[in-house]
């Protein structure tokens, strides 16, 4: 495996030394570009109390291109699809090399607090979120309880 760029080493060290509250990101033992991530559901959101597993991969040309991030834990959210793919501008066309793993994960956590059904990735979820927000939030809470609170 080719040498790891200094930037990735630094980011990893800083993530360990000054972890972001509510977020843990640990590099895989065999691949320093692959991170096991856990994000806690933000307070006052339907995801509160949940622990959401994600995977984050730094592509070869990182930081010139964005990290690839995906939810592994099932989540009921209009901007996250069944496969866990996330609709977030900074992961696509609004990426900038001044962003970091830390800022990406904070943005994902913020997306949980502020679902945006007008820019959907999961169409059925977004639709319900628009026509019956109360029911959508109930579903999100139920999924959080069912998939993000098991102790395993």
């Amino acid at each position, binding site marked *: 495996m080719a040498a790891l760029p200094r930037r990735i080493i630094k980011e990893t060290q800083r993530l360990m030394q000054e972890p972001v509250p509510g977020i843990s990101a640990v590099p895989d033992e065999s691949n320093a570009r*692959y991170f096991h991530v856990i994000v806690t559901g933000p307070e006052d959101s339907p995801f509160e109390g949940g622990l959401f597993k994600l995977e984050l*991969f730094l592509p070869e040309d990182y930081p010139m291109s964005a990290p690839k991030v995906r939810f592994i834990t099932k989540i009921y959210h209009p901007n996250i699809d069944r496969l866990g793919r996330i609709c977030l501008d900074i992961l696509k066309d609004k990426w900038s090399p001044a962003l970091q793993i830390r800022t990406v994960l904070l943005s994902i956590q913020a997306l949980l607090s502020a679902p945006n059904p007008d820019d959907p990735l999961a169409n059925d979820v977004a639709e319900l979120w628009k026509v019956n927000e109360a029911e959508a939030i109930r579903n999100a809470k139920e999924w959080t309880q069912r998939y993000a609170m098991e102790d395993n």
Partner: protein
Amino acid sequence: MGNCLKSTSTDDLTLLNGRSNDSARESIDQEPNLQFQDHIQPNFYSVAGGSNTVQQSLTEDEQIKIAKRIGLIQHLPITQYTDENFQSKKVPSECDICMNDFVVGDSIRYLPCMHQYHVLCVDNWLMRSLTCPSCCEPVDASLLSSFENV
């Protein structure tokens, strides 16, 4: 935002598949402090996106676009990082792109918004997007239009 539905699902379903078996293309990341002369700069540009297969088959239009982009970037001022910079603290102590400390003698490129980066780091980015990595300001829209719409 938007367009997420259109982006075809080339995302690896398990990102572990992307475990790096990359070989030669690390060199760009590794040498952020590399010193080089202005006039040989274009040698360092890799084509945006970085897919080897695409690189082989650039159309003439694409090649012209790249050449214009290089021309534009070279209008942005370069200075050497000096001891004064280091002491004044007006210039940040590290490059936001490679996260390495600026070292006296490093070539620094100034963008119109006055953000500074290593020349090699920011040029690599500007070939992909003519925006400042830190503030997202377009790198001189007027220059851009005069160059790219010729």
